[in-house]
């Protein structure tokens, strides 16, 4: 069995192509079933988000499967393969494992570290389970991918800080006020920019929104949207006194809020801290306002700088995340390689051991007068002999990377020693159980 992924993402394909090849949720079951019907495909799963379309599969005929999947994408969406083949990437085996681990950990996302992708992959996996197109191999692969994503999330700081201007504003507000709960925001201006920033703060927990605008009607309508309160433009002073955060985005050609005014306001506020976010261009708030004690003034460039710092941090963390992924890929590949040979090795060992035990018992019953020490010697001798005999073939099996060779050896061993056919499935199930036990132990330990 070989794992593979065929797909495209935001790096390889423009939005037009991604749109063409996307699978909507209502068509997902149908698409999964159609892929599963391809004779070359044993297991499959489809991830379709606005940034990526990927088909994951387990197969015994790698080349044919890749070809079939490409054909399928073209046929299903009615797009000629020529139009998108250049955008497609194909990863096989270890590379496919690494790919899904990186995707799930959000290392392959447009916004590094964004949290949605994990949920999207979980969704895709659930779909494939519902229609029974994912089997034991994808099952194991996906569980490992979720595990890796979790490790990356907890062991690196990749998702700790926001990378957008709005999230930078929320982050700063939290460093000033501790929490946004029970805080009030005053919006000066009722434009789109104000609305967007306010929305972020509201989702951050801000309790009350005040809106003031030159045209009062627009202030009212925006206030209604947030279940806030509209103030006349002349009442701005009142708002400044009451609020904790000010977002200003008017079209005023000169400064709207000056140093002297805020100095006075701060006295009225009994020096309660205030956070000004000036996202207007040209600016609404005199820069000197930021020099006043307990006043924090950030304009759009400052916020962008903070956001950029966070992006840099994330990139640094991403390197650590890649190391985790590498580590997990190796673990998975080792397990995966052992899949084909392990049942045979176990069977072979068992066979030899049975022979040894039987013959040893026979000999011992013929010589009842042997001392314990002599019995132990015989035990050790026989064990040593079978171990020595089995060592070279087992090592060879474990080290054979080429599947065709491994198959040859396996068939030969089964024929030569009359080993029972032990199905991969029962073995996988057992491995799965062990895995789960191990994981719950791990969680208990944490």
């Amino acid at each position, binding site marked *: 069995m070989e794992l593979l992924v065929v797909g495209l993402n935001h790096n390889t394909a423009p939005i037009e192509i991604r749109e063409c090849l996307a699978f909507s949720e209502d068509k997902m079951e149908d698409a999964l079933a159609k892929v599963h019907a391809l004779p070359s495909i044993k297991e499959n799963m489809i991830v379709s988000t606005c940034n990526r379309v990927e088909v994951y599969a387990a197969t015994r005929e790698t080349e044919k499967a890749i070809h079939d999947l490409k054909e399928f994408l073209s046929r299903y969406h009615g797009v000629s393969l020529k139009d998108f083949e250049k955008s497609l990437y194909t990863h096989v085996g270890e590379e496919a494992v690494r790919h899904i681990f990186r995707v799930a950990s959000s290392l392959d996302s447009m916004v590094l570290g964004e949290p949605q992708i994990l949920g999207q992959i979980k969704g895709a996996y659930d779909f494939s389970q519902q229609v029974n197109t994912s089997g034991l191999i994808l099952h194991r692969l996906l569980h490992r991918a979720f595990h890796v994503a979790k490790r990356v999330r907890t062991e690196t*700081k990749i998702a*700790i*800080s926001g990378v957008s201007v709005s999230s*930078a504003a929320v*982050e*700063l507000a*939290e*460093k*000033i*006020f*501790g929490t946004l709960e029970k805080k009030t925001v005053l919006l000066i201006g009722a434009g789109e920019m104000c609305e967007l920033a306010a929305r972020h703060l509201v989702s951050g927990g801000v309790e009350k929104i005040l809106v003031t605008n030159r045209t009062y009607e627009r202030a009212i309508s925006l206030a209604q949207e947030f279940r806030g309160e509209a103030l006349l433009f002349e009442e701005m002073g009142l708002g400044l006194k009451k609020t904790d955060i000010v977002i200003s985005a008017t079209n005023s050609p000169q400064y709207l809020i000056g140093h002297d005014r805020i100095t006075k306001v701060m006295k009225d506020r*009994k*020096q*309660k*801290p205030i956070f000004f976010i000036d996202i207007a261009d040209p600016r609404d708030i005199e820069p000197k306002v*930021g020099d006043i*004690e*307990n006043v*924090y003034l*950030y304009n759009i460039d*400052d916020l962008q*700088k*903070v956001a950029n*710092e*966070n992006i840099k941090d994330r990139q640094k963390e991403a390197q650590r995340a890649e190391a985790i992924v590498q580590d997990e890929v190796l673990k998975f590949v080792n397990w995966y390689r052992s899949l084909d040979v392990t049942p045979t090795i176990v069977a072979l060992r068992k066979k030899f051991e049975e022979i040894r035990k039987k013959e040893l018992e026979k000999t011992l019953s013929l010589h009842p007068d042997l001392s314990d020490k002599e019995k132990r010697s015989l035990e050790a001798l026989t064990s040593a002999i079978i171990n020595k005999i089995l060592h070279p073939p087992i090592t060879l099996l474990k080290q054979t990377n080429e599947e065709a060779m491994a198959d040859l050896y396996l068939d030969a061993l089964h024929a030569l020693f009359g080993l029972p056919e032990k199905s991969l499935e029962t073995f996988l199930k057992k491995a799965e159980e062990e895995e789960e036990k191990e994981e719950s132990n791990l969680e208990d330990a944490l």
Partner: protein
Amino acid sequence: MNIHFFKFASFLYLFGTLAYLAYILFLNGALSKLAVMIISVGFVSHTLALITRYVEAGYTPVTNLHESLSFFAWMIIGILLMANLKYKVKVLGAFLTPIALLLMLFAFALPKEILPLAPVLKSFWHPFHVIFAFLGNAIFTLTFCCGVMYLIQEHQLKSKKMGAITKRLPPLNLLDDLSYQSLKFGFPLLTLGIITGAVWAEYAWGRYWNWDPKETWSLITWLLYAALLHQRLTVGWRGRKAAIMAIVGFLAVLFTFLGVNLLLPGLHAYSNW
């Protein structure tokens, strides 16, 4: 016996400090938990050191500089453990533990023998005086750390540097709040410490107030904190000004405690150390 416990506690404070440093570097919550566990054990050992010394000496062991420093450190760790229960300011320990460790090292370098109690210290009031004064001082150490953290964090935010330091320090409002709360606890204790000291002075020297350097400086300290509390309550002082004042106040505390003993002769210098 008490010295063994004392040494063990010092070792644990050292490891606690290291764990806190590692926490600051890696921002791994498990490390701060580890640090709290280590210093908690250190605190228990330290408590045993004080108890055994009390038993061995037969008096409350706050009579010479070694004992006072150790007692001061014990209080600081105690306050830290209490603050940890109420406030989620993990990084606080990274400031307070090294201070306690320094006090322990200093105490360790000093003569540690148990000597017969000087007659002037044989008073019902003396232990109270010292306990109140040091409890106040330990709380002011916390206020001081909050002030330092506040100034750093405020500078970061004002200069629009949102870097590694900002991430590691708590939000401004929390620091200011903790600073204010600790001031409200510390100030009455310092006041009690001075009053019980005066009562003791009356027994020991026949006068409530002798204007010896220690007394003068504790009055200065008291006035500084009184001013800070007053400004906070009435004018709404907060943030930067309050933080600077808390730092100045703590410098006065340090000078009253150590500077006076080491530099200025007076009635409080009843033993060499």
